[in-house]
């Protein structure tokens, strides 16, 4: 029940139109773009990044809407939280020691500065003197060390230890297995200085280093296995961010007050009140001025734009949707992907399937342009690494047919579907996930597209799969699945190794390739600290992936925020650049209300 009912009808209507016009014939008039009545297309690049407000900031409280149809979990610590709602609370009261640039690489503008050794394996971190926890204690080097000691501990209940960089720290494995009681690669030099040494030089440390200290003086009495459930994290958490937590009503709201001792200066807002708002009523709450800021559900944008008292800002999200081919299986013994499934080994078949789908149509019709065709596996939200010149696969059914003919997939028995090169029936089993109103039309649309080029594609088990069964089948290489549609959130680390490497389980297509191994290795080698070099390598990698298409990148996503007119200095990139909350202010005591 995520949307209101009239929305549902609209989607049904849209499906209807899609079915009628989109992929099935080449004579429909939307090819030349005349059919504008049903297509309300938005363009995320036309959204401003920062709100416009020339007023003078007054001392006021901001109301933040946490858009979710469920209560937040309330694990309020960076080392332990898992759900995004908890992050939306964390951003106000705690932050990483480092700021970072638009490529998410750390800089020296934050609460700490860093320096890398000549061999790039050791980082010296110096915490600035005026950085203090909310209880007045200074943030010390041992606090950061403590964070590593907690995450690496065998009793730790969170998921952060799974990160490759975390395990690459010298002495981490020994500590994790209980052989050592300290991590030998982390040294506290003095109160404010600490060094971390990794086994390998990897440019991903600049984006992926763990820089969230834990207040040791506050938490050290709680056993590590009890930390996540302790009141010190759930009810009275402290951090060193611009606001302090004053009060929490579990699952529904949080009250923050200004941290006057914030290291970067006094924040503009007197306080923030965060409350959970159901996506069904978020627009009304914004119109009435009950909330000033909210991440806005993109599927409601069309009915919301033009609202007088709010502005929209937006950006491209750090994620992409894709369609993957099952090319093999995961060998858990050897911790390695094995490419032994013959069905889709022919590259031309994969390319043909990529040419056959019309992602532009999907983005425009189902998402009003707020999702748009993906061209590579590194989204544009990595401005330095996304290859802007990459073409990707644009809709070209004729080319798809030609490629299929060349590959030997021809319709020999005249039933309208192509047979495989041996003349046997060729049925492709497609696994798609349920959830949301668009899931079903989307899957149907892709299947129609493939049918148009003569491929017989059927849904696995004849229906959409629920989230858990979906990943259960994909992860365990269920032989029922040939092709699957999924999505990845990339996080801020550009390195694609964790999703496409030979030895990683999340390489769901199980595609392995020597050239790929080499490029991924180079991409996080010592040499890749040279940004130009790294860019070149990742451009090559994007080209390789587009050529080989083990997965077809399908759509990039937008993320938009609705902001009341009284708010100043709010920008769409405040996640992940959360220290910008300090500058956000309001220019009147009362929010603007729509008439």
């Amino acid at each position, binding site marked *: 029940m995520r949307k209101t009912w009239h929305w549902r009808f609209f989607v049904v209507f849209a499906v209807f139109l899609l079915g009628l016009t989109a992929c099935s014939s080449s004579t429909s008039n939307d090819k030349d773009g005349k059919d504008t009545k049903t297509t309300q297309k938005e363009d995320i690049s036309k959204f401003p990044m920062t709100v416009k407000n020339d007023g003078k900031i007054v001392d006021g409280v901001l109301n933040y809407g946490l858009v979710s149809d469920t209560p937040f979990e309330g694990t309020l610590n960076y080392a332990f939280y*898992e759900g995004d709602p908890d992050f939306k609370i964390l951003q106000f009261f705690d932050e990483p020691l480092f700021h970072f640039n638009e490529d998410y690489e750390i800089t020296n503008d934050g609460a700490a500065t860093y320096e890398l050794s000549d061999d790039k394996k050791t980082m010296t971190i110096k915490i600035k003197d005026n950085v203090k926890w909310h209880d007045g204690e200074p943030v010390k080097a041992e606090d950061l060390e403590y964070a590593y000691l907690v995450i690496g501990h065998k009793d730790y209940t969170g998921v952060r230890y799974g990160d490759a960089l975390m395990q690459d720290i010298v002495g981490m494995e020994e500590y994790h297995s209980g052989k050592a009681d300290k991590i030998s690669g982390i040294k506290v030099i003095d109160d404010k200085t600490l060094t971390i040494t990794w086994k390998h030089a990897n440019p991903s440390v600049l984006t992926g280093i763990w820089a969230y200290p834990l207040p040791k003086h506050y938490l050290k009495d709680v056993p590590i296995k009890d930390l996540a*459930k302790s009141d010190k994290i759930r009810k009275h958490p402290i951090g060193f961010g611009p606001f302090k937590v004053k009060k929490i009503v*579990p699952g529904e709201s949080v*009250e923050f007050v200004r941290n006057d001792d914030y290291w970067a200066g006094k924040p503009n807002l007197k306080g923030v009140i965060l409350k959970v708002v159901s996506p069904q009523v978020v627009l*009304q*709450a914004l119109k*009435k001025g009950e909330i000033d800021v909210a991440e806005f559900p993109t599927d409601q944008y069309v009915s919301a734009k033009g609202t007088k008292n709010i502005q929209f800002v937006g950006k491209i999200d750090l994620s992409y949707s894709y369609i993957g081919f099952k090319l093999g299986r995961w060998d858990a013994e050897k911790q390695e992907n094995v490419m032994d499934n013959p069905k889709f080994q022919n590259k031309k078949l994969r390319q043909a399937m990529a040419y056959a789908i019309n992602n532009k149509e999907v983005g425009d019709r189902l998402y009003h342009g707020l999702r748009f065709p993906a061209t590579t596996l590194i989204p544009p939200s990595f401005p330095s690494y996304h290859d802007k010149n990459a073409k990707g696969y644009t809709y070209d059914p004729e080319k798809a047919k030609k490629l299929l003919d060349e590959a030997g997939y021809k319709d020999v028995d005249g039933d309208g579907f192509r047979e495989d090169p041996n003349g046997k029936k060729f049925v492709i089993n497609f696994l798609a996930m349920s959830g949301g109103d668009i899931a079903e039309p989307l899957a149907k649309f892709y299947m129609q597209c493939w049918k148009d080029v003569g491929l017989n594609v059927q849904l696995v088990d004849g229906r959409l799969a629920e989230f858990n069964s979906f990943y259960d089948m994909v992860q365990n290489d269920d032989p029922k699945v040939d092709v699957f549609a999924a999505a*990845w959130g990339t996080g801020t680390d550009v390195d694609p190794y964790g999703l496409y490497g030979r030895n990683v*389980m*999340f390489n769901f297509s199980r595609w392995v390739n020597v050239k790929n191994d080499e490029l991924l290795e180079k991409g996080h080698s010592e040499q890749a600290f040279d940004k130009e070099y790294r860019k070149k390598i990742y451009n090559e990698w994007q080209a390789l992936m587009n050529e080989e298409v083990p997965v077809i990148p399908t759509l990039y996503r937008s993320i938009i925020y609705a902001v009341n007119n009284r708010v100043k200095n709010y920008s769409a990139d405040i996640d992940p650049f959360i220290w910008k909350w300090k500058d956000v202010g309001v220019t009147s005591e009362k929010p603007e209300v729509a008439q």
Partner: protein
Amino acid sequence: MLKFILRRIMMMIPQLFILSVLVFLLAKAMPGDALTGQLASNPKIDAQTLEEMKEKLGLNDPVHVQYARWMKNLLQGDLGISYIHKQPVNDLLAGRMWNTILLSAAILILTYMIAIPLGIVSGRWTDSWADKLIVGYSYVSFATPLFIFALIMLFIFGFKLGWFPTGGSVDIQVEKGTFAYYLSKLNHLLLPALSGALINTVGTIQYLRSEIIDTKVKDFVKTARAKGVPESSIYWRHILRNSFLPIAAFLGYEITGLIGGSIFLESIFSYPGIGQLFLQSILQRDYSVVTALVMISGLATLIGTLLSDIILSAVDPRIRIE
């Protein structure tokens, strides 16, 4: 009577045991586990760590071992740890359950407050315009889906008229324990409770109405009339008392329903309760929460039926439990 109650309670033990086995096996039979969600949200975790975490959570043990461990804790009143919420299920439920009971009790009270007078009116003056109106309302409310009705109520009374707060269970800025705090709680409760109650009345109205119509023509009523008992006292003393029997009998079940919560109301009004928690726990494979909730509602249902029987025997002298 006491013997009856004791026997019923003894019978609950095997019933609950069977329920526990079924629930546990079914929960485990669902594809995926609590860590599956990690795949979508956090690709920065390696296969080994996932495996290690499964081991730590005991997900790799044979099912009977997991069941025995769960049962042992259950008997000690420990419902386990929620993986998703990272806190003991007992604590998690304590917070949510209180909210849910408040909301459901408010719905129940409002339902009776609305339905009983309406049922009486429409039963007493059958086929009058008031009766037609009431029956009409009860049918419409029966046909209205809660998630649309609650939204409409919220838009009109919350956003347009601004009479009620639009979400949450309490205003965060009032001090806990003060009078204003309880007032704020009540204020937050009214609109969702009213939304739930207004379309929940059909059963009570119809039961009451048809019982009254039935009783109206019974012989003892005719006798009373013939003896010249005033009409109002016939209704109050003779007809109504008898007509309340099915509603009284149902009360036991209704009390059980208090802990179920409502997915739609909770989601629309951002009200943290049991309904959403149950749904989310199933979707996220938070086994300990799912099994705990099913066991609790199973127990509540058994107690509810028992209560219903007891109430019925108390109010209806014709029924005797031996």
